[in-house]
């Protein structure tokens, strides 16, 4: 058969595995930080290296002593073998430690190897923090660009433009340097025509930004769309998606995230910041051999990078580490905990020194009040929790239904048009209401804010009684007309945000979910808070209020209700528990509000779990069919390994390779006629006693390499997986020894093993496949995909929705 054709059909992906192999001899290597499978570039010659302890007798020139480029790497959209990666790392570490006793240079090498992890964390923190600063400052500027421009320097946003000038107390936002578009074009800012012009410019800018964003995503890095967290969860559980964490994805995601946020769409930047940080982590891994070559170690680094991403998004390093532990990571060894914290701190510190918000704060909505709350207020807090849970379940159901429609029907064929239509609708609906016109972060900041004497926003327009004011401690007051206007505007904003976010999350631009859900919760919380406050003011003689809320005291803080509402809604959607509470209390800077936050978060999680089991990220994983083995759920059915293994009773018997009787041609036939990712090796077909397991990719690479480089290997050469060479007549062609690519310790279970234990083994060890034996003989194989299909079948879901291998 044509060799080229043989090779062509064997690799899955269009990533440049093939050309890398083709020109491995030449000096062609463009970028070190490539997404392509790591190749051992020093592989020029064939010096037989005996580190493996194999017999180095040159009677059989064992060209496969040293690893060929490509052996030990994985194809795209495949699962890694955690056991193999971890054992490789241990071997490497052992070798370095043994060698370190030999010379000073080796000792230094071992020390630098130990420190490389910390250096990598430092670099990741620096890069993630800088990128977050860039995103924050640019997004802030571009959001204000929709409304006007600064004459003192076009790079200033509204707040910085008015920094120098003397503003009056009543008109704190207006200054002569900042011109809105109607002022610039028409010369004045009042009147109906000016309003229409402002409206038009707002919509035009929003459309331009989102159009540019989706074109850049489609043209340069299609993997940069969406939130990124479901895919990162899958990658961290052992899946390979080449290019998902690459350079172009990083650049495009950073740029288009700013554009998407500035266009006024109902999305946030926290989820995409996690993706950006993981891209930084992946790219910086290529600088260190230890992490570049080992997929398992690399995932430890990615866990830490995810923590750094959340840390810069919220200014919450501890919350970031807990988020990485709870939501994103699959295996989280203790060593990673400390390193993640270091990376998160470095990132937060870098962001702080860039100072994007001008007041040494990391997040726009940092809260500074410390008013006490009363136990009776737990009732409205639990109500907010219930609201959060209900909204979370509703949002997940509708968003998944909409995304499924996008995947299956014609709606998915027009991504650019979809983005434009959604942006147009959002912009047209958002401009008239001042609470939707401002960016969502500013809205949350205003809602979290406790009204003091100095606040002049509509929300704080209470009826003031100046005779009784002492200092800054304002009592509960009657609501003025401004507050009533603000209330119904906020109610409209709530309805709009609830519905438009369903259609926005999952579009082909980077979109995050945290900020919109916090906005929904904050609006609901503030509405409830103001209602309770007015109730307490007008009915202070009721039994429930008279004890603690006397007239003239400041008992209800609507800002706190907004915070609790935000936490409840975020918890209802993502089902975060500890990390949510820690992030929220790091935002407030105090431990006073832990109890209300926990009450709301727990209530919302319980209510949402009662309606639907999965959080939004798990639901998206299931929608896309990623091979993610859920680590939190129990498998409670009484099936056994023989019910799940392949081949089933009606299938042809298991495809095996014998250890020393098959020729190169036989093996090639097997490899091309089947699509399995690996083959068990047995002693002989009659005995079916297991020797080991060999991967398809390694087989293909080794055979092709042997055909090209080794003398005397022809189609009738025997392939042997044994230590010794089989006795052959002297006229037969030379033997191809492939013992080095054979995994001599594959995991096996007996056919009577309960599936509970098998699922547990797959989860705990991160296996890809497991062999099934009966009475000591090889019977079948269970792969991870079989396990996932079985779980789906047991849960009455569609087992064919598991798409990937």
């Amino acid at each position: 058969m044509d060799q080229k054709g043989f090779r062509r059909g064997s690799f899955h992906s269009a990533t440049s595995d093939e050309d890398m192999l083709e020109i491995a001899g030449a000096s062609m290597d463009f970028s070190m930080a490539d997404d392509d499978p790591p190749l051992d570039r020093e592989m020029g010659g064939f010096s037989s290296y005996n580190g493996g302890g194999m017999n180095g007798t040159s009677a059989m020139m064992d060209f496969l002593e040293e690893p060929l480029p490509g052996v030990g790497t994985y194809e795209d959209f495949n699962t890694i073998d955690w056991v193999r990666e971890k054992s490789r790392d241990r071997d490497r570490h052992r070798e370095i430690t043994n060698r370190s006793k030999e010379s000073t240079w080796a000792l230094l090498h071992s020390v630098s190897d130990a420190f490389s992890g910390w250096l990598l964390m430092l670099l990741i923190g620096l890069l993630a923090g800088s990128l977050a600063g860039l995103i924050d400052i640019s997004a802030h500027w571009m959001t204000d660009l929709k409304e006007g421009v600064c004459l003192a320097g076009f790079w200033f946003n509204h707040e910085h433009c008015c920094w120098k000038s003397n503003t009056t107390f009543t008109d704190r936002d207006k200054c002569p340097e900042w011109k809105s578009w109607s002022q610039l074009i028409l010369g004045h800012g009042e009147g109906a025509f000016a309003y229409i012009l402002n409206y038009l410019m707002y919509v035009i800018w929003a459309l331009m930004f989102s159009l540019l964003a989706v074109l850049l995503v489609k043209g340069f890095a299609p993997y940069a769309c969406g939130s990124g967290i479901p895919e990162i969860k899958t990658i961290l559980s052992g899946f390979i998606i080449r290019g998902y964490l690459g350079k172009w994805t990083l650049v495009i995601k950073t740029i288009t995230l700013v554009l998407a946020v500035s266009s006024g769409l109902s999305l946030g930047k926290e989820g995409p910041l996690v993706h950006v940080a993981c891209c930084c982590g992946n790219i910086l891994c290529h600088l260190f051999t230890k992490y570049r070559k080992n997929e398992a170690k690399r995932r430890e680094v990615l866990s830490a990078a995810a923590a750094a991403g959340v840390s810069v998004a919220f200014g919450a390093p501890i919350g970031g580490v807990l988020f990485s532990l709870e939501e994103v990571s699959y295996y989280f060894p203790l060593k990673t905990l400390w390193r993640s914290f270091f990376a998160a701190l470095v990132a937060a510190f870098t962001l702080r020194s860039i100072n994007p918000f001008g007041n040494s704060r990391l997040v726009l909505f940092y809260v500074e009040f410390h008013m006490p709350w009363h136990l009776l207020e737990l009732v409205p807090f639990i109500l907010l929790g219930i609201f959060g849970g209900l909204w979370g379940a509703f949002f997940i159901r509708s968003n998944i239904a909409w995304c499924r429609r996008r995947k299956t029907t014609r709606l998915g064929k027009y991504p650019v048009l979809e983005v434009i239509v959604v942006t147009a609708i959002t912009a047209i609906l958002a401009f008239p209401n001042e609470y939707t016109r401002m960016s969502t972060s500013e809205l949350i900041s205003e809602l979290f804010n406790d009204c003091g004497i100095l606040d002049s926003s509509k929300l704080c327009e209470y009826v003031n009684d100046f005779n009784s004011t002492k200092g800054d401690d304002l009592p509960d007051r009657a609501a003025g007309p401004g507050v009533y206007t603000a209330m119904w505007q906020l109610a409209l904003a709530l309805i709009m945000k609830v519905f438009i976010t369903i259609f926005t999350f999952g579009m082909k631009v980077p979109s995050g979910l945290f900020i919109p859900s916090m906005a929904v919760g904050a609006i609901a919380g503030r509405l409830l808070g103001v209602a309770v406050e007015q109730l307490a003011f007008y009915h202070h003689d009721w039994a429930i209020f008279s004890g603690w809320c006397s007239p003239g005291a400041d008992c209800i803080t609507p800002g706190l209700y907004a915070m609790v509402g935000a936490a409840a809604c975020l918890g209802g959607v993502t089902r975060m528990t500890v990390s949510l509470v820690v992030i929220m209390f790091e935002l407030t800077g105090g431990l006073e509000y832990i109890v209300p936050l926990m009450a709301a978060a727990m209530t919302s999680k319980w209510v949402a779990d009662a309606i639907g089991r999965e959080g939004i990220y798990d639901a998206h994983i299931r929608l896309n069919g990623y091979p993610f083995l859920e680590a939190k759920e129990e498998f409670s059915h009484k099936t056994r390994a023989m019910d799940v293994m392949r081949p089933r009773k009606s299938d042809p018997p298991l495809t095996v390779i014998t250890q020393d009787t098959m020729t190169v041609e036989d093996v090639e036939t097997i490899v091309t006629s089947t699509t399995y990712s690996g083959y068990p090796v047995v002693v002989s077909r009659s005995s079916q006693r297991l020797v080991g397991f060999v991967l398809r990719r390694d087989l293909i690479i080794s055979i092709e390499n042997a055909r090209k480089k080794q003398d005397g290997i022809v189609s009738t050469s025997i392939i042997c997986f044994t230590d010794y060479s089989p006795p052959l007549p002297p006229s037969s062609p030379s033997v191809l020894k492939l013992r080095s690519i054979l995994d001599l310790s594959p995991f096996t279970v007996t056919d009577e093993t309960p599936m509970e234990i098998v699922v547990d083994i797959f989860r705990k060890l991160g296996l890809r496949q497991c062999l099934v034996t009966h009475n000591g003989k090889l019977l079948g194989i269970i792969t991870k995909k079989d396990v996932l299909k079985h779980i789906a079948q047991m849960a009455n879901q569609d087992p064919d929705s598991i798409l990937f291998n």
Partner: protein
Amino acid sequence: ILFPQASRMFAPSSRNSVSPVLLLVLLGCVLCPPAQASKSSEDIRCKCICPPYRNISGHIYNKNVSQKDCNCLHVVEPMPVPGNDVEAYCLLCECKYEERSTTTIKVIIIIYLSVVGALLLYMAFLVLVDPLIRKPDPYTQPLHNEEDSEDTHSLAAVPTLAGARANTVLERVEGAQQRWKRQVQEQRKTVFDRHKMLS
């Protein structure tokens, strides 16, 4: 040892120990200017907001003082109330120390706009100019007619093209660009056409 070749994995490469150092130096140079931006006098201020008091309207006072002097007594210059009322008035005022770095903002916005501009230009180049200057290659046709299956791959012509003498810089750049374009096309198919990933 399970995999004898695993012990070769740590091959000491001096090249890799140089690159992290280089990157660190580069990062330091990039981050230094914003961090050490000389604080011009325009970039710090103390802002005191004083609400309406009796018959005096509210006012905002800005003054360029250091952080320890940032309080009502130093900043509220023409004190609107007589001496014995100063304390009551100052209790109502809220003073905040703020600083910013105009250089950082300017640098970051200019960097961002130039990257967006460069990407736009490159996109225009790829869409408009590239098809004209490039000879119609035989392998672009099979790529367009590719079936929706992962296993079949008509990359037959690619190895011949890329495997040719890729020695000159221009040819190497072209080779890399072709590889990248194929990658993006594959990604686009996965995400936009087959909807296999990212809903």
